[in-house]
């Protein structure tokens, strides 16, 4: 349009009489282009939204439950609409989490608000990437919707610093295919010892018919729910009460040997467990190819939504007793943070507080089911958590013996550096034993070296 006007409208004086080269002269073209460029730039700077230019960015790691993936963007939209703002919401796939968040942090482009698993939080805290403004959000949510569930408060704290707003508790649980174990004459959940669990797995292990006794990862996937808990059952643990990493200990070695023997010696684990991603054991169980797995409640929710036949045939429990006691299980969680670089901290606080309002938060919990347990007491009384027999079983049998991933210490940067979801260190240790034939004590010593470096760099 601008080009036509600058060159003179051909229709103003009858049929066009000017040559094409004159109508689109170089000067005219350049002037029109310049004007269009300026207009576009001004338009872009003006924003043009109906929210008066108030914008916020929010990233979340993609949850493992499809229904939540579908609902979360709608919820964020509803929250944004209520606040009269625009929210740029992105769900980051689990396997891209480290690369996306780290490069964003490196370039000063972290979103205003972001949600991560608790084990990641100390890494951001230790680098000064979290805003103290999150305390206002924590207080407001507590005042408006509280009180908080006591164990949820652990998600918010690093030492005496309040760094995040808890979003959901995510306990791990052992899943048993009761129908398969019944047929083999084994009572589940196993209430005896780890050896009883191994015998139970042997009783149902039948790879020829496509069923494996235990689909536990021999890779980096889901470390806290597996080798992390087995350590406790043998009297060990990745750190002590003081937050010092304690890797190369006789107890941890015994635990590691028992765990990797499942693959190398007893062969009750699928061969591809060395290549498991976080969703692989979920998939194996959902496909009816595993009699026993350990995972968060995402599998329970997926069974409920996709495989009601297996949902009815499944019972859950904690890891059974080990030589040093038990039963035990780990629990993690997700929490929301505000970036130190955010220029919209007040808006971020408003956004977080609004997100916990019943009309937004309750539907998320309903579809999340067993994967996301409430962090606020008022939501813990929702019928889904009190009436559903499966969820009640989790609350009654697993929650009482569940310990934070960091037990017996607290969350800290050194632990986080070594054991974060994508850190790869546990996976390297396990695959070096199961794939390369390295002796467990050598593999454990390798992990201890990594831990020592992290401890020196980041402290407790």
């Amino acid at each position, binding site marked *: 349009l601008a080009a036509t006007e600058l060159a003179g409208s051909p229709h103003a004086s009858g049929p066009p009489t000017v040559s094409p080269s004159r109508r689109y002269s170089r000067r005219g073209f350049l002037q029109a282009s310049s004007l269009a460029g300026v207009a576009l730039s001004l338009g872009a700077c003006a924003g043009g939204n109906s929210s008066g230019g108030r914008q916020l960015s929010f990233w979340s790691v993609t949850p493992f439950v499809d229904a939540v993936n579908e609902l979360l963007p709608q919820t964020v939209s509803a929250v944004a609409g209520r606040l009269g703002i625009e929210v740029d919401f992105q769900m980051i796939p689990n396997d891209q989490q480290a690369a996306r968040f780290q*490069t964003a942090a490196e370039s000063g482009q972290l979103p205003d608000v972001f949600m991560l698993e608790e084990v990641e939080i100390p890494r951001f805290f230790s680098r000064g990437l979290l805003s103290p403004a999150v305390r206002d959000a924590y207080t407001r949510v507590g005042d408006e919707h509280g009180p908080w569930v006591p164990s949820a408060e652990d998600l918010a704290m690093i030492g005496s610093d309040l760094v995040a707003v808890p979003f959901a508790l995510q306990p791990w649980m052992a899943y048993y295919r009761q129908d398969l174990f019944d047929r083999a004459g084994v009572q589940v959940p196993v209430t005896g010892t780890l050896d009883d669990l191994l015998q139970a797995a042997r009783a149902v292990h039948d790879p020829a018919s496509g069923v494996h006794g235990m689909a536990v990862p021999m890779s980096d996937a889901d470390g806290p729910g597996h080798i992390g808990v087995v350590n406790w059952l043998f009297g060990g643990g990745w750190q002590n009460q003081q937050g010092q990493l304690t890797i190369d200990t006789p107890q941890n070695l015994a635990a590691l040997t028992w765990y990797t023997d499942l693959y190398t010696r007893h062969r009750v684990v699928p061969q591809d467990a060395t290549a498991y991603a976080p969703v692989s054991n979920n998939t194996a169980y959902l496909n009816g190819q595993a009699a026993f797995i350990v995972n968060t409640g995402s599998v329970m929710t997926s069974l409920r939504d996709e495989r009601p036949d297996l949902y009815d045939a499944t019972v859950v429990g904690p890891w059974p007793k080990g030589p040093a006691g038990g039963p035990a299980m780990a629990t993690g969680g997700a929490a929301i943070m505000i970036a130190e670089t955010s220029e919209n901290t007040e808006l971020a606080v408003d956004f977080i507080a609004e997100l916990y309002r019943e009309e937004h938060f309750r539907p998320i919990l309903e579809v999340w089911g067993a994967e996301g347990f409430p962090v606020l007491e008022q939501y813990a009384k929702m019928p889904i958590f009190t009436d559903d027999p499966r969820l009640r079983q989790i609350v009654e049998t697993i929650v009482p013996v569940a310990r934070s991933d960091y037990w017996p210490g607290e969350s800290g940067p050194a632990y986080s550096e070594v054991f974060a979801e994508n850190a790869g260190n546990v996976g390297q240790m396990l695959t070096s034993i199961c794939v390369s034939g390295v002796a467990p004590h050598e593999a454990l010593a390798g992990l201890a070296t990594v831990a020592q470096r992290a401890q020196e760099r980041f402290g407790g």
Partner: protein
Amino acid sequence: LGWLFTAPALVVLAVAVGYPMLLAIWYSFHQKLFGLPADFVGLENFLANLEDPRFRNAVATTLIYTVVAVTFKCCIGFAVALLLNREFPLRAVLRSLILLSWALPEIAVVLGWNWLLNSEWGALNVVLTRLGLIDQNIYWLSDPALVLPTVIAVDVWRTFPFFTIVILAGLQNINKELYEAAAVDGASAVRRFWHITLPQVVPVLSVALVLATIWNLNDFATIWFLTRGGPGSATEVLSIYTYQVAFSSLNDLGRAASVSTLAMPLLALLIVVLVKVSKRREAEV
């Protein structure tokens, strides 16, 4: 005036290629953990790489992956190009179909293969079992002895059409009279291939070989979406190792940058070869 016209391209190159490359070289002399300032460590990163068995394994795996994959792609691509250069019904359709695997988006193709090769529920094992060829599942992507050949096979399947296209273009430029003259002289098919076809195709083949070598040396997506470099480090090539060092085990951008910096001379050499081959071809044309 020439400089004026090339200036925008030079600016883009400087910003999009030059700056990141210089930054990577600068980082390679530092320990650079994400979110923290860079600490100068001199040559420590390079020495640590050379002493790291995982790095040495990644170099060996990269070389095996590249040499074997490029060799197979070249041979299969050549054979298919010779076939497609002959007259037969539905030749045009077959030419289009052959291109399909190369034309499809890499991620889609690799994820498809990931599903086909799954040891527990993958279609390939199901088909082989039903045909009575195997009696227990084959662990294509988790058996350390099988995984690298499997990954190479997927890469060859996906990219051999590139060789087919390039070689086919070369074959179509060969003067038919050369073959007629050879036939009159009684040259066998093998001798015609050896003395006419191959020499005529070598210039384009050289370009294709150098390009494919560079692509395979830098390949990331095919391996990442099939195995993530596993099991263990059985398929960990340099690009995967670099990514793991940057974003997983060490979280050290400096150490990761030093891996890339170490690979630069080899890639630069290949680029020089490519430029020289291209220039020679231009001179011949």
